[in-house]
């Protein structure tokens, strides 16, 4: 009982804060730069980005809850291997669920759903947060981080789809005469768009630090 109490006392941030921090201050993509591979690979349209973000968030939340509830039973030496097993189980579930919901979407995302297993974001939350905190807090942390990840992926996906295809969620928003920036949906566009968002974030942070 005592350790839980001390962590509660010591952990100044309230539960809302655990949730909020993932959205903005410690945003997994823009601030921590974690889990880059899926971010760049599937953000070529808003719908792909959103689906990938939600799938990752689901795996993150479930694995954080399970890791947190098992944290007193998993021996220290094999903890990383156990986390990976837990994550792989949920990813397999998500993989089959997406295949059942929409075959097209599954085809678009391809192997990247399976590759959620090696998303460093999930493993880092399991190791850095869920293995040390209560179930409730871990769930909130995962929810915040997951939503932050979805938000970041959506930012990228929307920019790339609007510029590269002239549409958002498949609806055309520009007149016929709009010349698409094909480069934006190609791999190079992913690097450029992410660089742009990180640049905006850095700019904002530097200005705030000066003020």
């Amino acid at each position, binding site marked *: 009982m005592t350790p839980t109490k001390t962590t509660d006392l010591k952990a100044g941030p309230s539960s809302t804060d655990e949730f909020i921090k993932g959205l903005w201050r410690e945003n997994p993509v823009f601030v921590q*730069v*974690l889990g*880059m*591979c*899926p971010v*760049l*690979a599937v953000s070529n349209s808003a719908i792909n980005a959103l689906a990938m973000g939600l799938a990752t968030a689901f795996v993150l939340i479930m694995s954080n809850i399970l890791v947190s509830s098992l944290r007193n039973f998993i021996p220290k030496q094999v903890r990383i*291997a156990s986390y*990976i*097993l837990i994550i*792989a*189980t949920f*990813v*397999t579930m998500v*993989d*089959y669920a997406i295949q059942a919901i929409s075959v097209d979407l599954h085809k678009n995302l*391809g*192997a990247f759903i*399976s*590759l959620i*297993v*090696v*998303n*460093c974001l999930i*493993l880092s939350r399991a190791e850095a947060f869920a293995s040390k905190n209560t179930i409730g807090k871990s769930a909130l942390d995962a929810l915040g981080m997951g939503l932050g990840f979805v938000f970041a992926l959506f930012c990228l996906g929307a920019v790339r789809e609007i510029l590269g295809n002239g549409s958002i969620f498949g609806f055309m928003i520009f007149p016929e005469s709009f010349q698409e920036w094909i*480069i934006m949906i*190609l*791999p*190079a*566009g*992913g*690097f*450029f768009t*992410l*660089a742009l968002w*990180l*640049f905006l974030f*850095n*700019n904002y942070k*530097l200005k705030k630090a000066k003020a």
Partner: protein
Amino acid sequence: MKSESLWYIFINASLINNFVLAYFLGICPFLGVSGKMETATKMGAAVTFVMIISSVCAFGIHALLVAINAPFLQLISYIVVIAATVQLVEMVIKKMSPALFRSLGIFLPLITTNCAILAVALFQTAKGYSFFGSLAFAFGGGIGFTLALILMAGIREQLDFADVPKVVKGTVITLLVAGILSLTFMGFSGLGS
């Protein structure tokens, strides 16, 4: 297409569909250890090595899983085998050549979470390559990864001497360079077709 030659698979994996610059696989080590030429070369060699070994393992596992009719175990068994392989390789290198082990340092265990390795296993299964096709694919992927890493390290070593504005220093400028490299690699797309 059954007629894909080994050479074509190799060129395809290393240049045309470069793992890092076209598929965005292994971005974390690509951004993380591309600061110095020496570490980049060693990391590339280690990844290529583990890729080939895990590709062979994945080929065996896939045959076994098809035989016992349990495809849903694919992902779990791949990741477990890769983690075990990395561990095994680490132990072997430690025993055989302590000098190499020391120079690779923390890179070896980090390879487990390199998505490029798992992707080699998944893609070769999805594309249905033969045993030698898988080997060529894994070797090509590893060479492509090493090539991208070395190119990046070379550019970043030069960047250290350049006067980069504070706001784009670090990740932003690295990503911009990666984008330009990716554009360059698109020039290979007509090759081998």
